[in-house]
């Protein structure tokens, strides 16, 4: 009988690797994608919001999504290959208690590291036209950081979801359900949608 909530533990390797992989991916995408189609946190704080906001945000979120997806694919594969009494239960427990919080926090940390220099130098580098909206912009930043976490989590769950359907076994209940996947996706859309809409409204 289980008493209380399951204990959440962080996988430090997964956390660090997710953080830096998202940063590396973002850097590569920023070199590959033209600036008008790429969202930057610097642009959010300065005077160059991207001209195609929705596409730019999607482009920016591509890196955490791909990192989460690759992490989910590899973790699922390694766990399924390992010997054990109940591999499915192990996979489900690790996903809930270790991988999901680690990947979420890793992507959140990557967004935080990207934003940190501009947060520190807000008084110096902010566009004078929006300098007085400091508190609001910091709140938007926080929402974008949460959106980063959710989109990485979406990638992680999507990879496991796809792998589970590739090895279809109708007798076994799936670890990641469609409902769970859509809920994380909705949370990501909600956060990035709110932040983008507010940004569009105040910089019109």
């Amino acid at each position, binding site marked *: 009988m289980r008493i209380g909530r399951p204990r959440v533990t962080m996988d*430090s*390797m997964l956390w*660090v*690797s997710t*953080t*830096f*992989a998202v*940063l*590396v991916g973002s*850097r*590569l995408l920023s*070199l590959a994608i*033209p600036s*008008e*189609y790429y969202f930057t946190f610097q642009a959010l704080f*300065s*005077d*160059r*919001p991207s*001209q195609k906001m929705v596409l730019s945000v999607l482009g920016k979120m591509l890196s955490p999504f791909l990192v989460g997806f690759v992490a989910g694919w590899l973790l699922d594969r390694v766990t399924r290959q390992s010997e054990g009494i109940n591999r499915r239960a192990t996979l489900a427990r690790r996903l809930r208690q270790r991988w999901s919080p680690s990947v979420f926090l890793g992507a959140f940390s990557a967004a935080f590291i990207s934003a940190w220099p501009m947060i520190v130098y807000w*008084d*110096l*580098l*902010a*566009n*004078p*036209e*929006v*300098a007085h909206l400091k508190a609001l912009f910091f709140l938007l930043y926080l929402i974008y950081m949460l959106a980063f976490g959710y989109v990485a989590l979406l990638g992680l769950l999507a990879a496991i979801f796809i792998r589970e359907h590739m090895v279809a076994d109708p007798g076994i209940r799936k670890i990641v359900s469609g409902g769970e996947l859509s809920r994380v996706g909705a949370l990501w859309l909600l956060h990035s949608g709110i932040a983008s809409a507010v940004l569009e409204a105040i*910089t*019109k």
Partner: protein
Amino acid sequence: MTTARRTGTRLWCFARRFVARLWSYWNLPPVVSRRLVAALVAWPVLLFAFFLMPEVGYLSVPPLFATATQPPGKADQPAPLQQIRQLAVLALPMEGDSSQDPDSAQSERTRQLRERVGTNILEVAGYLSEAYFIFNQEQYPALSYYVLKPDGRAVSCAMPDVPVSEESTREHAAYLALAIVAVEKFNRNAMHRLAERTYAKLYRRAFGRLPDLSFGPAQIRLSLLRQIAAERPDWPEVASWASMADEQLLDVLWQECNALRIVTTFALHQIDRRQLSDADVAATYAGQRRRSAAPIDYASIVVAMVSMMEQVLPDKGALPPAPIGGDPRP
């Protein structure tokens, strides 16, 4: 056993114990797993490697997917016999030392960054009465800049009673002083300055004299004031500093209005005696020995601030409305 031999044996025993302890310390179970440490080293190195990769700069780049916004039916029109299409060209600096600017767009972005930083600093200092952002896309590339109107009280404070050949020189030096003091105030906030003054008082009680530190909103050393006073006996206001006690000078420096006037006097002195440019005056004032081409550099920011204060506001009716975040790029 001789004393030397006994000492040598003790030293040898001590060294062996030290090495043994060091070895056992090294072999303790790791606080952080070695895999994690390796990851923390390898990932940043990989990340920094991608930041070393330079961005390729092209000139005359048409907007991507521009054909999507072109009017329909273009394909049906007959192609003209002569077509002129501008191609994107790679902008690279000349090898070796070269003062030529390979990428004018990059220079423009640096200018805008300096203007933005300068505007923020002047605004925080409270030296502005009005500020405007001008965005003019009638020309290519579109022009964007700031026009700042300094506060009248600050300007009147910064006007010293020293003889100058042209009145415009005095006003220019006053703007230079506003910019310099604003930067100094930004770098040393009120808490820092209060701590400096408290330290000076304690130092005075302990050693009987004031330390030669920078004080007040303008961050001026007392020795600098005395040096200018010695070099300018023909300027009565300046010559009077020589007869003032350190405490009196400190009180003068503590007043922002006086500090502004002193900095203008310093600027006029440098311009008059040494024919220095604005950037050189700012660099000399801050004791900046090595100038840099960094976008955010003391002297270049001060020059940008003066330039914005001397800009003339164009006729508002002649310009299209300036959007927030107006992008100067096409």
